[in-house]
Each structure stands twice: as C-alpha cells, then as structure tokens.
C-alpha cells in the first residue's frame, strides 16, 4: 500500500443536494402508496442493521475472509429492486448483502452464510461475496472486480433470446470501470441491443484509490464513457431514493421496451472501508469527507426526514422499525451461531450438476481425484 502524503478527495463532482419532497412527485414515485413508502424505509434500515450486526460478528471472529459492507449505499439496492418486475434480473459484485436482502433473501440464511454454516444461503460454500437466489432472479454475489459484467450482458441476452420482456440490472463499483471485461460487455451490449442496465455504485474509491487516481474519463464523469459506445447514460444522486427510482426506471423502461442498454452512475458513499480488513480507509479519505457524507448525505437519514415531514411516519413509528430491524438481525446471528457447519462429505457436493443428479447422469469414469 503506497503511502499517500495527502488525503485527496475523489475528483468526482458532487451532485446538487437532494430534495426528496420534490423528487417524490416525479412520475416513478408519484403514485407510491404510504405502505410502499414506509416499506422502502424499513428495507433500508433492515440492510443497515444487518450490516452492523455482521460487522460485530466479524470483530468477534465469527466470520472469516472478507466483509464488504453496504452501509451508506442502501438506497441503491432498495430503490432499484423496488422497480423490478417478473422478468427483470439482478446481478452484482461482492458488496452484495444489500441486494440480497432487497430481493427478499432472509437475514437468517444470509448471516448463516457469513458464519460458514450449512444453513447459509450457499450452504456455507460461498461466503459473504457469493449470495445467490435464482428464485428471486438474483444471480450473485461475485468476487472478481467486473467479473460479473459479462454475466450481466448474458442475463440480458438470455431474456431477449427467450422473447421475454425484461431487463438485467448489473451493478458494479467505480473500481470496476477500468477492467477490460467491462468494456467488452459494453461493446457487446450496444452492438446487440441487449436489455442490460449497468449501474455504477460510485462511492468514490476503488478500494484505497480515489476516482481521480484511477480513472481517465470525460469531464461529466465515468459514466460518460458510454458515449464511446453510443450507449444511453445518466448520473443519479444516490442520497435520494426517489432520484434513484426515477432515473433507473427510465433506463429499465428503455431496456424493456426498446431493448437498449444504459450505463448509470449513482453517486454514493460507504462509511466503512472497502472491506473490514481495509485498515486505511481513514487515511485515503479525510475525516471531513466521511463526516460530511454521514451528516449531510445519508440516504436513510434524508428519507426518514422526508417521512417525518410528510407525516407518513412519526417518531414512534421510526423507533419501531429500527427496533424490529435490530431484533431481526440479532435473531439471525443467534440462528447462525446455533446452526451446524457443513460436513466433510459436503465438500464434494454442488460441484457438478451431473453428480448431484445421479439418476440423470450420462457420463462415466472418475470425476474427483483425491485418493
């Protein structure tokens, strides 16, 4: 890790301050019921409480490997997933707990997965970076930066091939935009009119490296690279759940109706490090910057203020949601704790479809080679 003598802020431009009361009236949001509006708040709070509980579990030594927390970015997963319809699919990178909970995976299975237990959503075989649930059109959970971006194009290609009206939401970080595979995916998506919406969750830093130090891009930002592929693009203020819904819906409609891809850049921030193992996140970022985002740009705080101001919820209602989320997260940790680990025989399961479906096996010979 190179020592930086100055704590540079990222060179990305800050969007204009959100005004949720105004943004609530935009077409994508104007018809939301109070139940739905409160539901979005509940979902964001649930994600944050889950992440905080998993952070504690990690510090207690219950979780191995990496833990990439979504704290600060909750509005994106909740806002985007709330727009999904039957034939829409979602895929993301390793900061995937928020998307998993947003599509409806349970805290129990997600926490158990972190603990490496057999009751985890991947039977303990994937870990934090690899949550999947095809039944909810959720395809992971991927560890290699930008490795999921061709897969996202593939989901869109599959939908189109099958004649289904839908789109693929493919999330990535600002750190992924320089990987070759991402550029190949953009080219293919544009060339073949694939209904994929690439969503850059730009929190300003690819691990410890600011956008300014990593990315060459037009003045308007990294999403403007889409011009090079003649792809529709837009920038969205991630601190506003309504802005997210309004902007992303346009792109999803374009994908579903016209089968055209989009590249969206959502301005957001993470309060924790790249992962919990990132000990430098207060070095490559300034205290002022972190505090500013926490105090003035937190999507949950801003949304809560909107709910209170529009009298959709009162202080008691807020407290109730918070308490319920904390309890649910605590319960999931207890569930994870008392669950069993996988057994040794499980190591060789779920490797090959054929081996897991022996009644339909056609192959012969030996497939595993330990003695």
């Amino acid at each position, binding site marked *: 890790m190179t020592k930086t003598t100055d704590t540079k802020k990222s060179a990305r431009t800050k969007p204009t301050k959100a005004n949720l009361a105004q943004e609530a009236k935009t077409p994508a949001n104007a018809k939301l019921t109070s139940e739905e509006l409160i539901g979005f708040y509940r979902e964001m709070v649930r994600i944050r409480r889950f992440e905080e509980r998993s952070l504690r579990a990690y510090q207690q030594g219950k979780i191995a490997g990496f833990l990439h927390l979504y704290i600060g970015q909750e509005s994106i997963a909740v806002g985007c997933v709330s727009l999904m319809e039957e034939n829409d699919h979602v895929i993301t990178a390793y900061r995937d707990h928020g998307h998993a909970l947003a599509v409806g995976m349970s805290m129990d299975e997600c926490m158990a997965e972190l603990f490496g237990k057999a009751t985890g959503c991947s039977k303990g*075989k994937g870990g934090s970076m690899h949550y999947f649930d095809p039944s909810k059109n959720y395809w992971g959970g991927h560890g290699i930066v930008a490795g999921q971006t061709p897969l996202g194009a593939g989901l869109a290609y*599959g939908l189109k091939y099958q004649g289904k009206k839908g789109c693929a939401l493919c999330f990535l970080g600002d750190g992924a935009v320089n990987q070759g595979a991402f550029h190949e995916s953009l080219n*293919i998506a544009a060339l073949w009119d694939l209904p994929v919406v690439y969503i850059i969750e730009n929190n300003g830093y690819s691990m410890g490296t600011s956008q300014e130090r990593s990315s060459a891009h037009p003045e308007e930002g990294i999403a403007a690279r889409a011009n090079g592929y003649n792809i529709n693009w837009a920038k969205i203020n991630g601190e506003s759940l309504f802005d997210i819904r309004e902007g992303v819906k346009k792109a999803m409609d374009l994908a579903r109706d016209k089968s055209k891809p989009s590249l969206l850049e959502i301005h957001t921030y993470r309060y924790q490090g790249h992962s919990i193992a990132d000990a430098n996140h207060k070095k490559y970022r300034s205290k002022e910057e972190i505090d500013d985002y926490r105090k003035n740009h937190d999507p949950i705080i801003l949304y809560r203020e909107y709910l209170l101001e529009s009298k959709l919820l009162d202080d008691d209602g807020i407290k109730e949601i918070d308490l319920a989320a904390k309890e649910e997260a605590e319960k999931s940790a207890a569930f994870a704790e008392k669950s069993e680990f996988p057994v040794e025989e499980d190591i060789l399961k779920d490797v090959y479809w*054929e081996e897991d479906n022996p009644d339909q096996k*056609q192959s012969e010979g030996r497939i595993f080679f330990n003695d």
Partner: protein
Amino acid sequence: MSEISYRQALKNAMIEELKRDENVVIIGEEVAEYNGAYKVTEGLLKQFGPKRIVDAPISEAGFIGMGIGASMLGIRPVMELMFWSFAYVAWDQIINNAASVRYMSGGKINVPIVIRGPANGGTGVGATHSHTPENFIANTPGLKVVCPSNPYDAKGLMKSAIRDNDPVYVMESTIMYNDVGEVPDEDYTVPLGKAKVAREGTDISLIAHGPSVLVCLEAAEVLKAEHNIDAEVVDLRSIRPLDEETIVNSVKKTNRAVLVEENKPFCGVDAQIAYLIQNQAFDYLDAPVQRISAIDAPAIYSPPLEKIQLPKANVVVKKVLEIC
C-alpha cells in the same frame, strides 16, 4: 454409415443438437458469415439463421462471459474459440465463473455451456497460437474436458457435451479436421468418461489423447513390423471425467506403459495418468511408466524444429525399445 471428415462430424453434431433443442446457440468469431475460420460451422448460418448462429466481436472474455450468464437462464451456448490459445483472454470467465458459480451458490445454479475449438500445435503458428490447455482445464473441479481423436468420437462427444448440464470443453485439432472416418448416420452419443482401446495389443500400453493417439497408432505399426512388439493403444477420449478402469486394465495386461501427449511435461495430462498407473497397478509394472511430452519450451516456429518438438512415432518407438 458414412465416411465423413472430423470437421463434418463436429458440424453434424451441432446441426442435430440445434434441431433437437431450441436453446442451443452457436457463438464465436467468424462462425456465421465467414462460415468459420476452419469451416467447422460452414453453412450453419444459412440453415439456422442469425439468432442461432452468432458472430461475436473479438472479445473472448465478453462473449464467453455473456454465454455463461445466458446459460444461467437456460440458454445452451456452444462457443467457439478460434484457437484454444485464446482461452486465456477469457480465463477469469472460464475458471472463476463457469467452474465456480454452481459451487459458490450451494448448487442453485448450473452452467450448461460448451466451449470448443482447436487445441494443437504443429502448424507453424508459433507460441501464442499452439496451446493445448486440456491439462489446465482438467485441474479445475467444476469443468469437464474431452479430446476426440477421430470423426466418430468427435460427433459423439460433441453431442454429449452439448447435452451435458455442466461446462464441457472440447479440444479439437486443425490437423485432424480433414481426417476421414466412419460415422453412423443415426443418432448416437459417446459418453464422457469412457476411454477406448484403439488397437489391441499384449506387450505394451501406449496411452494418449487427441492427435497423439494417431502418433501412437503409427508407432504401433512400426513396432509390430520392425520389432515384433505388439502394442496396445488406449485413446483416453475424455480427460475429465477420466476412464481409469480402461487404463489400469490395459497396463495390468501388458505390464508396461508409455504415455504420449502434446502437453508440456510438468503437470500435463500424463503426469496424472502416470500417478494413477503406479498407484493402482504398481505390482503389474515391469518397468517405470515412461512419457513423451512436447519438448519443454514455448512452441517454436521453425517448421522442421516444430516437428521435432512434438511427439512423433519414431520417438515413441525409441522410448518403447528402452523398456521392452
């Protein structure tokens, strides 16, 4: 029965599976309008149209990753690598996605893809175009890899590969595309994981895969004619899964083995075969297992030297005479 080429056999396999299953789609560089860099997909665009036969831009990571993503929704892409040497451009997708996504999801997903293309040297195309990566693939749990050496196996294994619900990688050879052989006209498959005794013998087992099988058959003729040694030739056909039983039974019968491969020696396929022979047939061996691999340097360009670098019948014969 028809006498058709290895190339035609592959094509017939794809035609039959394209007809059988509407989810099968052929994707690759120059596979459609160019009719295939090596004409394996010639005529398919005309017969099936651009939805089923798709020209990809030169973006192996992009289109192979795209195929993997589509396969998660039930599409069955058969993706061509113009040369298996280009696989490394897409290596992250091939290893980290195709092989691992089922495992990391706890078995919720499967990836029914085929990646096919020529994996061979010997054509003067130099070090970056002459790779035979079946050994790298075979080292990866979650993947399957086959190496047909003749038209009958090419068609049968390709059909099995396309029907298989796991990723199956098919190693062909530009040198073998023109080889002609008998192929049934009716529907048949060759299962993965089954080797074949290509030539029965009693004195020594020559065990090989891909083009090296032809080298061994040639060596076997010379051994019989000039040295009265009756060699058995075992064609592995499938590397992972692997038919250990046929290999071991052959060595138990002949008591000697020479393994022949185009892989480089360290961790080539034959390193695994040698291990299993000494492990399972130790008491039957009258000599240490011997091996002919490609000479251990990047593929040389100069044509006469390239011939020397790859296994040849006279080198196999010489090695056999050392232990017989």
